[in-house]
């Protein structure tokens, strides 16, 4: 059997692809089926629910009404959406600032050190997210670790209020999402041509210019991916701010949660909020990946540079 018929030939050089034959489509069916069953279908259901009426005991009464979407636009909730965006932005910027140097170091290290550092970054990820967050309560509370040490060292005379503040929420968010920023950027940095970096750093441009003019622009795909992987999920967060903010820093995630698991028992409204967010995310992702696609034709090549496929 000629190799071409099975698609197993070496013709896919430099990222060019072949047209799928019957086998090509056949092999893709599981993926299509999965995407349809577990991504498209639930989204459609959520969409239908967003136009329904609120059921007495929660749940929905199918029908058609736009009141749920009207609710989404209500200033009460808009204020919270804006707050969520602010926190997400701050978190993303802090993660970027704190994470880029780390990612750079890891990406430029030799294999042994790189693997060790990657493991070091990943291992805390391996513990229960809840317990990690509660550990921060122990650290930040007025009789907690930091305050006790500071008082012992006589740096302060009274406990410094850290817990149940917006600052604590930001600490928790950055803590939760920093690995999501470090990994994609590291991936981008690792593919950097060593010679290029050496040249940039050696040819008289100071490290600042070398970074800003050469290195950072080359790692933009990684940065973009990191930003997306931090910003978007942090919009939907509700547990970290609930625990570390003393329940005072409600975000969009909390509102959605409230509709399904809280007092409101208003599924259609939750569905409307969810659908709005889902559509927003899908659009953002699609636009970002389209722009990247315009730059390089090959999805693998893009991911190789640390960006989105």
């Amino acid at each position, binding site marked *: 059997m000629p190799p071409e018929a099975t698609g197993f030939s070496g013709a896919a050089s430099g990222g060019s692809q072949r047209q799928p034959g019957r086998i090509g489509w056949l092999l893709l069916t599981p993926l299509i089926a999965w995407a349809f069953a577990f991504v498209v279908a639930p989204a459609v259901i959520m969409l239908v629910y967003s136009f329904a009426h*609120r*059921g*007495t*005991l929660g749940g929905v009464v199918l029908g058609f009404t736009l009141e749920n979407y009207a609710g989404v636009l209500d200033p009460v909730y808009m204020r919270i959406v804006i707050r969520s965006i602010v926190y997400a932005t701050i978190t993303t910027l802090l993660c970027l600032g704190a994470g880029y140097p780390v990612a750079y170091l890891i990406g430029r290290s030799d294999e042994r050190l790189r693997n060790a550092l990657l493991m070091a970054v990943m291992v805390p990820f391996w513990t229960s997210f809840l317990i990690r967050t509660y550990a921060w309560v122990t650290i930040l509370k007025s009789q907690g670790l930091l305050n006790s040490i500071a008082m012992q060292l006589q740096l302060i005379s009274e406990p410094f209020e850290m817990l149940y503040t917006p600052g604590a929420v930001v600490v928790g968010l950055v803590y939760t999402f920093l690995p999501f920023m470090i990994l994609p950027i590291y991936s981008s940095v690792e593919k950097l041509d060593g010679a290029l970096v050496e040249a940039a750093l050696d040819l008289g441009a100071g490290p600042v210019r070398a970074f800003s003019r050469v290195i950072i622009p080359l790692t933009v795909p990684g940065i973009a991916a990191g930003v997306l992987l931090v910003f978007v999920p942090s919009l939907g967060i509700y547990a970290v701010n609930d625990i570390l903010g003393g329940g005072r820093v*409600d975000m969009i995630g909390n509102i959605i949660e409230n509709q399904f698991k809280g007092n*409101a028992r208003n599924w259609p409204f939750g569905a409307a909020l969810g659908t709005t967010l889902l559509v927003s995310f899908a659009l953002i992702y699609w636009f970002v990946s389209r722009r990247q696609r315009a730059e390089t034709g090959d999805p693998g090549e893009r991911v190789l540079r640390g960006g989105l496929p």
Partner: protein
Amino acid sequence: MIRSATRMLVTLALALGLVTPLRAAAAEELNLFAWSEYVPQSVLDGFTKETGIQVNYESYASNEEMLAKLMSGAASYDLIQPSEYVIEALVKEKQLIPLDHAKLPNLKNIGKEYWNQPHDPELRYSVPYMQGTVGIVLNTKKVKDPVTGYGDLFQPRYKGRIVVLDDALEIVTWALAAQGIGFDGVTKANLEKARPTLTQWLPLVKVYDSDSPKTALLNGDVDLGVVWSGEAAILIQEQPGNFAYVLPKEGAHMFIDNLAIPKGASHVDAAHKFIDYILRPEVSRKISDEFPYTNPNVEARKLLSAEQRANAASYPPGNPKLSTFRDIGPLAADVDKLFTDMKAKSGP
């Protein structure tokens, strides 16, 4: 290499007791859906030991979480543990199976005062599990002035030292009570009256926590608050002399958590057996030992220690003004919106 890795993973999966779920299908089961950490393991084990019925304990952290899962029809539960106002709604919607009192001889142990509550006057659909109140807890080392009600508590001098439940219905009801409106007065007309009170109160709150408000009190991050009586009772047990519990004079919420059998239960008989088992004084007492709420079982109360009986949070002395919550139907969405709005405006 893939083959050996796959083999390793599959062996691992099997070794980890993949067999277990298959085995459990054989014995009879009871699907209990209750508040998290509200039914002691010793009680479940005792029941299984005596009847051979395996109890699957799934938990939730709010009535609404329970309703969401229950009404979605996703799982079949045999017993649920709703609060009194939810029982009222469930009965209205015909979602509960009436109880066969003939199968519940121990029902007579329930105190008389629980037989005439508005949500289920003849205990036709539900059996009280535990009762409690929502009241004021004070760290007596820090709070020296008398605090007898919501009005006394939400004062500027306590700003940033208060913890309250993260519960829209509770807080709105307190705000209305402080203006003299009864607990059955949560209506659309009255709702807006809560707004000015909440505008005044909420900026003083440091922590909203329905799950474990005692944590903030024990940590010393707050000095007083309005919490579940069980939480206050635990505080009093942990640090006797440091904490006091006071029922607000404007009116306090008396909640009754009940056991009920939802429509669609598959093990109705086992459910009855479990309810009757819980109603035994010596079993009920075990529950009290772990959760110092008010035990509605008068026979069980006789078995408690003097210390437990003396805990003011569990068994409040005197004749306080107590009321249960009523089902408010679709107004719940508006209550939530009001609370969300007020919280957002008063917060950081």
